[in-house]
Structures are given as structure tokens and as C-alpha cells.
């Protein structure tokens, strides 16, 4: 319960008026909190994994290879006799790192670019919009695959490949908002007293687009995780010296015809839970911030 409260107040700091909205909107608020708890749980689990795992997740022949779940190995063992439970507990690290780095890169590129381009307008804006739109319209995973191949393996490279795909969504959201915000009287006022462009963008426009950026970033987290899993599945993952859900899932797919369901089921489930946590947060947040349906609920 305590954690719930801290989450709420943290979010309330980011988004003004969040607390009151969460109270008013039952389900959406609950979605956000539930999603935050879910992701929080997985992150904590991954961080504490060295102390939580019953066996070393990388040591082979802990049990008989491909043991079905039993009392000794609650989630069974994989082809090399590694304990699945330990691998599931420890396997989130790579994916979380990739997701965090790629969201950070997206924020670092997408936000300034979006603000700058849409505030400048004219040819510059047209140019960037065109590029961003074409990337946006193209199937994302295909682009990510192409970039992942040319960049090579590794956490940062994978994150970069994913970031390329999702920068346009930040850009578009920011642009659509800035275009209307920059016409508002208070921005004009700031302009007329000779405020510097940096100041206007940072102090007057950025705070207004921050809520939407939060939503996009949360959704981006989920997408980045799914894309990372997809890249790993195609064989572009991180070299397999670390336990990783995506890698286990990929390996498990080869064992599928022999009916070893536990090898794929649990890593896959963890990926779903992690992505689900972020998706729920994003869903809840966007509903809280989008007043379109609010009328209907109060009726």
C-alpha cells in the first residue's frame, strides 16, 4: 500500500493534477497503479536476482536436461539442464537495459528535435516531418532488423536500432502539440519581451507537452521490449552468456515439436507481464490525460 502511494505522488509530481484525476477516474487510475506495480515488481526481482535464484542460472546440468516442472525444479529445466526458475528470475536484465537505453535515446533525440523543428517551422520543419513520417509509416520491426544487423550485436546497438524506429512517434506527438501551443498568447507574450528561443522552448512549451511525452515513453517501453524480443527471436540478440527471456524463448522454439512447453511458456510469460505492465500504465495515463471520454463516464 505504501508503495502505491509513493508511485502516485511521484507521478503527481510529473503530471500536475494527476492525483485528483486518479481519484475521479476509477479504472484508469487503477490501471496505472497496477501497471506500475507489475513493472516495479519485475524490476525489483531482476535487481535482486543474485540473491533470489535457487541455482546459478547459467550453470548447466543442475538437473536432468528437459525435466518437466516438479517439486525440485518448479519450472523445469532446459536442454542443458539449467534451472528454468532461476533463468526466469534473472532473465529480465538484458531486456530492461535495452528498453531503458532505447527510451533514453528516443527522449534525447526525439524531444529536442520535435521542439526545435516544429517551433522553427518552414522548410526545416517540412524536411524533418517528411523523414519522420516516412519512418513512421514503415513497418517498424523491419527497420529495426536492418539497423540491428548493420550495427552489430550488443545492448547499446540493439537499443539504438530500436530507438530509430520510435523517435518518430515522439516527434509527431510533440509537433502536433507545439504547433497549437506556440500560437497561444502567453508564448507570444514571452516572445515579445524578447525571451530567448531556448527559454521559450524549455520554460513555456516543454512543460505543456510533458504529459504526452510521458504517455509515449511508457508505451515506447512496452514496444521496445517487444521489439527486443523480436530481434532476439530472429537471431540478432545479445550473445548468450547471460540469461535472457528472449534468448530462452528462441532456443525453446526449436524444442517445441517435442512438446517441451515449459521451456518457452515461462520466459514468454515474463515478457508479456513486463510489456503488459508498461502497456497498462500507458493506457491508464493516456485515458487520464485525454478528457474525450470523461463526459460519458460522469453521466
Amino acid at each position: 500500500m505504501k508503495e502505491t502511494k509513493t508511485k502516485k505522488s511521484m507521478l503527481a509530481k510529473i503530471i500536475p493534477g494527476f492525483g485528483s484525476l486518479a481519484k475521479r477516474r476509477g479504472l484508469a487510475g487503477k490501471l496505472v497503479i497496477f501497471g506500475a506495480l507489475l513493472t516495479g515488481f519485475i524490476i525489483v526481482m531482476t535487481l535482486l536476482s543474485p540473491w533470489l535464484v535457487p541455482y546459478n542460472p547459467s550453470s548447466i546440468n543442475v538437473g536432468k536436461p528437459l525435466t518437466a516442472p516438479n517439486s525440485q525444479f518448479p519450472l523445469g529445466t532446459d536442454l542443458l539442464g539449467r534451472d528454468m526458475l532461476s533463468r526466469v528470475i534473472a532473465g529480465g536484465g538484458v531486456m530492461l537495459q535495452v528498453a531503458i537505453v532505447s527510451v533514453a535515446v528516443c527522449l534525447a533525440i526525439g524531444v529536442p528535435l520535435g521542439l526545435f523543428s516544429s517551433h522553427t517551422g518552414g522548410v526545416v520543419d517540412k524536411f524533418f516531418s517528411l523523414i519522420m513520417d516516412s519512418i513512421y509509416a514503415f513497418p517498424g520491426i523491419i527497420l529495426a532488423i536492418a539497423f540491428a544487423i548493420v550495427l552489430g550485436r550488443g545492448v547499446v546497438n540493439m537499443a539504438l536500432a530500436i530507438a530509430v524506429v520510435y523517435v518518430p512517434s515522439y516527434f509527431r506527438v510533440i509537433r502536433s502539440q507545439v504547433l497549437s501551443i506556440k500560437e497561444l498568447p502567453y508564448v507570444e507574450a514571452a516572445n515579445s519581451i524578447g525571451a530567448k528561443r531556448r527559454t521559450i522552448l524549455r520554460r513555456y512549451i516543454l512543460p505543456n507537452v510533458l504529459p504526452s511525452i510521458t504517455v509515449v515513453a511508457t508505451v515506447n517501453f512496452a514496444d521496445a521490449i517487444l521489439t527486443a524480443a523480436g530481434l532476439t527471436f530472429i537471431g540478432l540478440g545479445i550473445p548468450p552468456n547471460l540469461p535472457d527471456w528472449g534468448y530462452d524463448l528462441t532456443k525453446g522454439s526449436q524444442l517445441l515439436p517435442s512438446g517441451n512447453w515449459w521451456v518457452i511458456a515461462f520466459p514468454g510469460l515474463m515478457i508479456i507481464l513486463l510489456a503488459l505492465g508498461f502497456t497498462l500504465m500507458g493506457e491508464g495515463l493516456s485515458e487520464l490525460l485525454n478528457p474525450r471520454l470523461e463526459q460519458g463516464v460522469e453521466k
Partner: protein
Amino acid sequence: MIFILLTTVFVVMRVLPGDPVQMHFEKMASPETMLQMRIQLGLDKPIWAQYFDYVVGLFRGDLGKSMQDYSSVGQQIFSAFPATLELAICSMIIAVSVGVFLGVESSKSYNKPKDHVIRVFGIVTYAIPVFFLGMILQMIFGVWLHWLPTGGRIGPGLTPPGLNIPLSASSGFAAYFIAPSLAGLVLASIYLVAAKVKHKKFGRRVLAISLVFFAVGWAFFAGLGLYFMSSNRVHLSTGLFTVDSLLAGNLFSFGVSLKYLLLPSLTLGLVLCGIFIRLTRSNMFETMRLDFVTAAKARGLRDRTVTYRYAFRNAFLPVLTMMGLQFALLLGGAVLTEYTFSWPGLGRYLVDRINFRDYTAIQGAVVVFGLFVSIVSLAVDLLYAYLDPRIRL
């Protein structure tokens, strides 16, 4: 738009490390041989000249030669594309029908338990990696129940369906047949939708055009069939196995190809249906509160009639727009699905080729994907303008 994308891919592929010539010889060739191959492929020219050559070729409909095995990229893509198209169409149908149905149900019981369950289902589908869902379905229906095959497109020993007509230089001629037929097919389906929403004038025009396309395609087809009657038998078809089987009147083959198609498209369809659920739900909810719906209810019409014939028709437009937007996502998901189910489509081709740094093949695939996306979004825009008179003003 496609050109920007193409240019980006072109430059990125060439600037970043990785050399197709080295990949071809697996680093075992002498420098002279490699230089020779480089000249052959035109890789010794500066980048801008390579780009120029490629674009000029593109305008002539030439996608270049594969840098891996010298075969024509256009031909390879052409043979892989129908598989992707078939998968895409089927999954879109599944996604939209499941999504719309659940969305309507959800909006009817707004904020009640049923609504919540459906919403959570929608969110969960969004969070499932498409290949994981594919594996689960393979596990259940393929491995445990033995109902459906887990991979491939047509059973072993079965030839791909279609009318086996003799034809020696198949691919070049196939294009003349397939392109008009496909265009006709698309237009015919637009006609069906248009007819459904009673845009008679527009509908008739589209129908006429689609019939012309069909006629052109079939005329070629028939002509070729007569012409090559005596030479070797080469397979020719639309490449959509289900359609081909029906055209050939082979119900058994239709059943088999449907069986192979079912799991992949179900996988992809389910993953995509979440967004349609959400969209239909919110739109239906708003539409159901409008006066004309109340009036229809007051006249004592059946619940289903009111929902689908009155309200849904108004809530459909955003769904249509979303279909266009989702197409890119669908193609992306198709790549992973094709990989999971060993479906011999364009996505699989792309993934295979990327490993070899096969520049021309990758560019070709990107161009075709881009074209596909733009054609779909154009079609949706046109359709939208006809369905919603406000846009035309």
C-alpha cells in the same frame, strides 16, 4: 516518401560496415576475384553513381540483381509477395472482425465487468510478442492436438494449387496476369464495401474498372494458355493458394491451404485486434448516445439491427482509417509470424537476405513493403473520401 526511405536504407547499408562480396566468398577469395566481383556488381563506383543506377533501374521496374546469387530480385520478391499478401489479408480480416465484435460488445456494457474483461483482453493482446503467441498456438493445435500444421504453406507432396498451364518464361508473363488480377481483386473488394454502405454511383464506377482489370488479366492468361499449350508445364497462378485452389475448383487443395493459413493469420490477427477493440469501443459508445440511435430503439427495432445497421455504420469510419494505419504494423508482425511458421513470404526473404548483406535484395524488399503500405493508405484515403461526404467538401 518511398524514395526517402529507400535513400536512407541505401546510404546506411553502404556506409556502415559489412561487405556483400566478403560474405559471398566467406573471406576465402583472393583480392583479385573479389575486385572482379565488385566491378561486376558495380560496387566499385562511388555511392552516388550506384544510387543513380539503382533509381534509373527502378523506374524501369528493374529491382536489380541479387548480390548473393545474381538472380533477379524482382523475380524473387514476386514469388514471395503473394504469400505475404495472403497472410496479411487474412489476418486483417480476423483482426477487424474479432476486434469490431468485441468492441461492440464492450461498448454495450460500458464500465461493467464484461467491458473490463474485454478491455484487458485487448491490452494483453497488445503486450504479447507475436511469435510467442504463434508458438503457443503451434504447441496447442499442432503438437498436442495435431489439428493443424505448425509451419509451411502447403503439405509435402502437394503441388501449389492453381491452374497448371504451360509457360516457359513464367515470371515476366505472370506479372501481366497477376498485376491486373490483383488490382481487380482490390477494386472488387472496394466495390463490395462501397455497395455495403450504399454508394451506388461510386460503387458502379469501381466495379466497372475492376472488371476491366480482371478482363485484361484473364485475357492474358487465356492467351498464354493457348499459346504455350504444347511446351513444358510451368506453374502459373495468383500465388494466393486459397484463391488459386478455388479457381482451379480443387476443394481438397483449398482445405489444405486454408489449414496452413489458419494458424499464422490467427496469430497475427489476434495480436492486432486489440487496437480495433479499443477504437470500436470508444466510437460505438459515443455513437450509441446519439439521437438517431435512440429513435431507432424507440421504433422497436431489434438490438442487433440498431447496433450494426445504425450505430456501427457511423462508428466504422475511424476503424477504416485505423485499418490503413495498422497495415504497416501488420506487415512488421508478418515478418515475425512468417519466421515462426516458416511461411515463405517477403518477410522471411528479407530476414534471410539481410544476413548476407544482399543490398539489392534488401532495397527491393523495402521498396515493395513501402509501396504496399502507400497503396493501402491511398486506397483507404480514397475510400474514406467517398464514405464520408464531409471530406469531399
